[in-house]
């Protein structure tokens, strides 16, 4: 009995390890090619051609960038706090990655008769976990900016910290109305509810709008990229960084974008639900593995769409001024989110009675 339990557990550990490895490497590759997409789409929007020298259509450009960053000299300023200076980018990257643990990438696959769930951890407080990790993300910026011992970095770090903390409030409030409807914090349950009913965006358009604005602010993307406002702060909180430590900072932004896109797709756009298709019937006809693949592709398409929106907005809208940013966060988004919450509550009560 004991040996059986042990072997079962070992399989589970192995399976989870493989899944984690797959998800993280997938996230990294997607983030890599998001940098390529960013440059290419930016070029197209400005009637240019974009990178097209490295490989066909410039497809090897992200590899070239990565290799270049690896070969750059690694400089740690003398006046900086060495430990924190190294910790900053690591923390930024780790927190960007951690969120992927609770996102369901598909239902399950069957290998050798074992049902393998395509979610690393189905925590019943999934959204709470997401919030916890996302609010950790500010430490990467804060520590990096402070440890650099540079006034521009520090200013950027303070900006970033206050921005992220302010927008987290509105983000949380906008999700409360969603949670009142779903009645569950588990992302898997939320997706299953959307698969059986309709997508949450139909019931919560305002909530989604607030959420996506806050996600832009959390990811430090234009129009809220004040922590890296080049014309005001030289380079922002990663001013003193070089080589791959800088690469990790720049890269964590794209990983963050990818993960937040996945969260948005999961919460509001049905996650791995294929629109207008009944997944149980599909499983019966195609088998679990193929269905999982198609479900994953559906989720990936939604994620790609959001990534495009991220890039699209960045190359359209100019940056907010800092007081405008705070005005928008505190005076507009939070009251709106509260109103949305009350409206949702009233409508829900009316429907029930």
């Amino acid at each position: 009995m004991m040996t059986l339990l042990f072997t079962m557990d070992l399989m589970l550990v192995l399976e989870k390890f493989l899944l984690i490895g797959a998800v993280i490497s997938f996230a990294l590759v997607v983030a890599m090619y998001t940098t390529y997409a960013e440059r290419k789409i930016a070029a197209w929007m400005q009637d240019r051609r974009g990178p097209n020298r490295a490989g066909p259509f410039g497809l090897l450009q992200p590899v070239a960038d990565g290799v270049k960053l690896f070969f750059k000299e690694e400089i740690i300023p003398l006046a900086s706090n060495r430990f924190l200076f190294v910790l900053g980018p690591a923390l930024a990257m780790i927190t960007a990655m951690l969120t992927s643990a609770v996102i369901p990438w598909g239902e399950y696959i069957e290998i050798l008769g074992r049902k393998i769930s395509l979610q690393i951890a189905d925590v019943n407080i999934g959204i709470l976990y997401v919030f916890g990790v996302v609010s950790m993300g500010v430490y990467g910026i804060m520590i990096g900016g402070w440890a650099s011992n540079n006034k521009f970095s520090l200013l950027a770090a303070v900006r970033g910290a206050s921005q992220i903390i302010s927008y987290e409030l509105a983000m949380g409030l906008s999700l409360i109305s969603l949670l009142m409807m779903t009645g569950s914090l588990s992302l898997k349950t939320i997706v299953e509810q959307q698969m059986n009913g309709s997508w949450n965006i139909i019931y919560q358009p305002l909530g989604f709008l607030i959420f996506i604005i806050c996600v832009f602010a959390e990811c430090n993307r234009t129009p809220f990229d004040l922590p890296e406002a080049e014309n005001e702060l030289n380079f922002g909180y990663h001013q003193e960084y070089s080589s791959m430590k800088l690469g990790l900072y720049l890269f964590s932004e794209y990983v963050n974008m990818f993960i937040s896109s996945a969260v948005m797709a999961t919460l509001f756009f049905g996650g791995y639900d294929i629109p207008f298709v009944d997944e149980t019937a599909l499983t019966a006809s195609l088998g679990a593995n193929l269905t999982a693949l198609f479900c994953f592709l559906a989720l990936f398409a939604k994620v790609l769409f959001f990534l495009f929106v991220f890039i699209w907005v960045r190359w359209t809208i100019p940056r907010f001024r800092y007081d405008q940013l705070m005005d928008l966060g505190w005076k507009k988004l939070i009251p709106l989110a509260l109103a949305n919450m009350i409206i949702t509550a009233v409508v829900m009560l009316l429907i029930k009675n």
Partner: protein
Amino acid sequence: MERLTNRAKVMEQKPMSFMESLYLPAIFKGMAITFMHLFKKKATINYPEQQRPFSPVFRGLHVLNRDEEGRENCTACGLCAVACPAEAITMEAAERKSNEEHLYREEKYAAKYEINMLRCIFCGLCEEACPKDAIYLSETFAPSSFTRKSFIYSKDELLIPHPVNEPEKFAAAKGAREARQKN
């Protein structure tokens, strides 16, 4: 004040209306504009593979001219050096020997002729000053280099290829200019 175009708009500074203060309509409008640009014709070209045609009055690197028999036109009169506002041209004159008639067209020639391409401003005044049609500005520009010294072009770099010995190279160097002079 008279306006040059009728496109000027008078600035209105009144408080924003409710729709304007939502920002979203304006943002969506902007996003529609950028989205349309995805499909527009690109304004740039792939440079080394494709090149834009030069304007007929383009002034690039200098060429020291030869006549149809391959004799150098330059008589080292120094008018180009005098005309040069950047003082980029230096030369040393020499007298033609009796066995050098096939090399130089007139009795005096430039033994040394140097143009400092870092000083040159490519104004073309040397070409205008030259009474012998010995120097003109071509449609290539100076290639980049690592040393300052390599930007001082001597006669080897400046002279046009020999029309009898290297007719193809001569035609290539000359070609665009002939067409230009006809226009």
